């Protein structure tokens, strides 16, 4: 259940976003904020409405109860009068002499004259003969009370007061009024015998109608009276009900002894209130219409609608306002980022405005842009330095002294008929320059770099008349890796000029290339003069004053390695005076493929 709800919650905004094509922060905030608030408001409205309406219904029901209480008392009083009249008859029946009967008749005449609601009073003897009727019309001889249920019940139980549902009175010829009857038994002594007679008081509906009409249950509300079997005693639309044109919810009324209920009867909500009537098995039923009895209901509904509309308009406007406040700085940021995206870094720092998060974001953005600018400048200057040192390295190769001395040596060897030496030196020189240039590539195979160093050593060994020996020891695995070119030669040059050249003994140069971890190490060791420690300390700091000074070539190699491979790599020098110097160059183990991409950069 909860999961499904969650899914719906996640799903809906997506659907909404898709269909309306709005996914800016502003519209999302506006939409979700408004939706949530509106739903909450509508729920509160419905809650208020239902609470209010159920309370109102309760109030209406209780006020209907109170109104009906009075009507009930009135009807009970009325029935009581009828009973009193019958009691009066009963009291007068002690003497059944014709004189007394005449007196009773006179008294009844007077009563009936005063009371328009009593249609007829009649006294029947135990065997069904009419003893007395008032008013005295021609009695209908076709009608016999002996077959009537009410008569037999009255004779059987003379103590009871029996109220009959409405029926057509058949007592007199040609008169067929609708009446409600009250019957009771009379204990009389007639012609010396104890007999049970029956008295009948027939009422018309005038008083009951008046009692019911006097009570106001709203404009359309009304009161009716039923007996326990559901026979209608009085109803304002009695004939309509008799004709089947109207219906009344009598079944529910009989089921519910007393009290009230609310139901939807023929599409209208009404409150039915039921009261038992004393002296009889009648019930008085009040029907009132909810929408009438609760006049403020409509006002209240209108009020809630107004509040809802008001609130919804307010919420929508407020959320538009708030969301625009939140999203505006973000939008400005987005605009600047677009410019950066198109490569324009020359933007001024953004003004830091808006909410805390946006402020921080703006600050971070500003910082990022300035860092990027700095890095870019750094890259530009580094590239420049790299190019410069490469150029320097190349320039060093084409050192005119070196070329002049070499060519001089060749000439000298030629004059001494040393052809073998000439060809060896010329070949070495050619290899030396070929690899130096190497089609302008900066990165070459380790094997080429080693060959380049070997060529140089061949030339120098001849020139220095075997003043030194050299050994080149290369690990086979290292041969096919890549390296920047011209790193060994400057070191060897230093070893010859500043190391071996300064000693009397025969020099030794040992070159070793090997893989150590993820690095390739080029090591050049000599047994020369060595470098003074104070000199060694500043060896990478010296500015090139003279091309021949120690450290110019070394520094160039050092810088180029740093620029190409980073600070982890570089040149390490160990030296001891009069013992020798060992220079170790480390470069990364790049593999062969790296060389291609490097080519592109240069």
């Amino acid at each position: 259940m909860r999961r499904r709800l969650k899914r719906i919650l996640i799903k809906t905004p997506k659907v909404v976003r898709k269909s309306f094509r709005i996914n800016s922060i502003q519209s999302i905030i506006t939409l979700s904020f408004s939706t949530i608030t509106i739903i909450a408001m509508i729920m509160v409205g419905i809650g208020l409405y239902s609470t209010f309406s159920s309370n109102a219904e309760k109030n209406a029901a209780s006020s209907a109860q109170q109104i009906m209480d009075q009507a009930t008392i009135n009807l009970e009083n009325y029935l009581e009068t009828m009973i009193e009249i019958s009691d009066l008859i009963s009291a007068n029946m002690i003497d059944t002499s014709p004189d007394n009967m005449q007196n009773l008749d006179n008294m009844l005449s007077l009563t009936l004259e005063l009371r328009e609601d009593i249609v007829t009073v009649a006294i029947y003897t135990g065997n069904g003969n009419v003893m007395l009727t008032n008013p005295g019309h021609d009695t209908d001889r076709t009608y016999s009370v002996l077959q009537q249920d009410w008569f037999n019940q009255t004779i059987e139980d003379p103590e009871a007061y029996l109220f009959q549902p409405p029926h057509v009175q058949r007592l007199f010829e040609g008169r067929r009024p609708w009446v409600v009857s009250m019957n009771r038994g009379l204990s009389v002594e007639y012609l010396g015998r104890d007999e049970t007679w029956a008295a009948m008081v027939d009422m018309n509906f005038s008083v009951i109608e008046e009692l019911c009409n006097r009570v106001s249950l709203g404009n359309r509300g009304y009161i009716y009276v039923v007996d326990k079997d559901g026979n209608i005693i009085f109803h304002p639309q009695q004939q309509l009900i008799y004709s089947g044109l109207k219906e009344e919810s009598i079944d529910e009324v009989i089921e519910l002894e007393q009290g009230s209920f609310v139901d939807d009867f023929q599409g209208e909500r009404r409150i039915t209130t039921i009261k038992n009537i004393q002296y009889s098995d009648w019930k008085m039923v009040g029907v009132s219409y909810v929408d009438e009895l609760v006049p403020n209901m409509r006002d209240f509904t209108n009020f809630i609608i107004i509040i809802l509309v008001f609130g919804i308009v307010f919420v929508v406007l407020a959320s538009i306002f708030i969301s625009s406040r939140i999203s505006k700085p973000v939008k400005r940021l987005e605009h600047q980022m677009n410019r950066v995206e198109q490569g324009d870094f020359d933007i001024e720092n953004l003004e830091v405005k808006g909410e805390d998060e946006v402020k921080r974001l703006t600050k971070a953005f500003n910082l990022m842009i300035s860092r990027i600018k700095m890095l870019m400048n750094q890259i530009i200057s580094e590239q420049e330095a790299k190019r410069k040192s490469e150029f320097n390295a190349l320039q060093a190769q084409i050192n005119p002294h070196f070329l002049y001395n070499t060519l001089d040596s060749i000439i000298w060897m030629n004059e001494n008929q040393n052809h073998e030496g000439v060809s060896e030196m010329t070949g070495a020189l050619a290899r030396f320059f070929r690899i130096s240039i190497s089609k302008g590539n900066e990165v070459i195979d380790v094997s080429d770099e080693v060959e380049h160093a070997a060529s140089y050593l061949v030339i120098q060994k001849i020139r220095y008349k075997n003043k030194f020996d050299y050994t080149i020891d290369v690990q086979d695995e290292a041969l096919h890796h890549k390296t920047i070119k011209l790193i060994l030669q400057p070191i060897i040059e230093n070893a010859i000029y500043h190391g071996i050249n300064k000693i009397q003994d025969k020099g030794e140069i040992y070159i070793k290339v090997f893989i150590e971890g993820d690095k390739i190490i080029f090591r050049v060791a000599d047994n020369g003069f060595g470098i003074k420690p104070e000199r060694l300390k500043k060896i990478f700091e010296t500015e090139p004053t003279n091309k021949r000074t120690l450290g110019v070539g070394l520094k160039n190699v050092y810088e180029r390695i740093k620029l190409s491979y980073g600070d982890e790599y570089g040149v390490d020098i160990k030296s001891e005076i009069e013992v020798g110097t060992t220079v170790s160059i480390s470069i990364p183990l790049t593999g062969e493929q790296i060389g291609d991409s490097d080519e592109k950069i240069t």
Partner: protein
Amino acid sequence: MRRLHRIVILILILVISVSLIGCSSGELTTEEKKLNIKVVVKMQEPGFWAVVQMGAEAAGREFNVNIDFDGPTYERDIDGQIEMVQEAIDEDVDALVLAASDYELLVPVAEKAKAAGIPVIIIDSNLNSDKIDSFIGTDNVDAGRKLGESLIDKVGAECRIVVMSFVKGTATAVQREEGFFDEISQYEGIEVIDTLYCNSEESLAKQLTIDIVNSETEIDAFVCLNAYGTVGTAYAIDELGYAGEIKIIGFDSTPEEISFMEKDVIQSLVIQNPFNMGYLGVKYALDAIRNEKVPRSVNTGSEVIDKENMYLPENQKLVFPFTE
């Protein structure tokens, strides 16, 4: 500055919306004019048509409309009824409820009313027009059949009878005759001596009855097709001393007819529902005014009652209209 602008606009919108709601809720209460519905019946008398009037007035009270009830003194006064319908058109009533005295003669004036925009609801006796909104009344063919059934029940399948009809050619008479003759045609033993027309006058019915009883030797029963024919025949039979001997199968339930039935002059009555005709006539007239759908025809039904069952609670309510 711009923010201030926006707040001002916001407040303006709120004020406008609230005032709009206020206005619309204020205009809801308008007093409805009380409608006038004219009910024109065949004649004014204390029996059948008085109950129709009761029904119409009950509906008038319930739906809060004015009911103007009218009808000529004699049913044969067709011109008088036409004039009354014309008056209704002149008064520009909101609807007309009409019990047509003549199937044909009332057609032009009723259609004129309809053309003038007045809904026309016909009750009891139909009109030869397809322009009327609704017909509410007894299915008279069925009522005629019930007369036949009751004749078989009370007199038997072997008898000589006289049919006392009322106005020759009037729709209700034609239909009741049709139903009755159709029903008795199944029985070969029933001989119809004559069909008489009393013009809905008791005295004429009485005279016709006396004449035919005196001239014919053997009559078993009279079958009367409306209240006046029934009452006139009953008086004649009662006076001639043939009560119970010459049986009467009658129509409707006036107090006189009930009284004759209790005295065994009349053996059974086919009763209609005049209260419902009056009530439904007004109710559907009101629906027609409001342009709601009105049923093309409504059968208010008929029942057979006799001395034994007339006081049963369910029949009491039909036989004796409830008056307070």
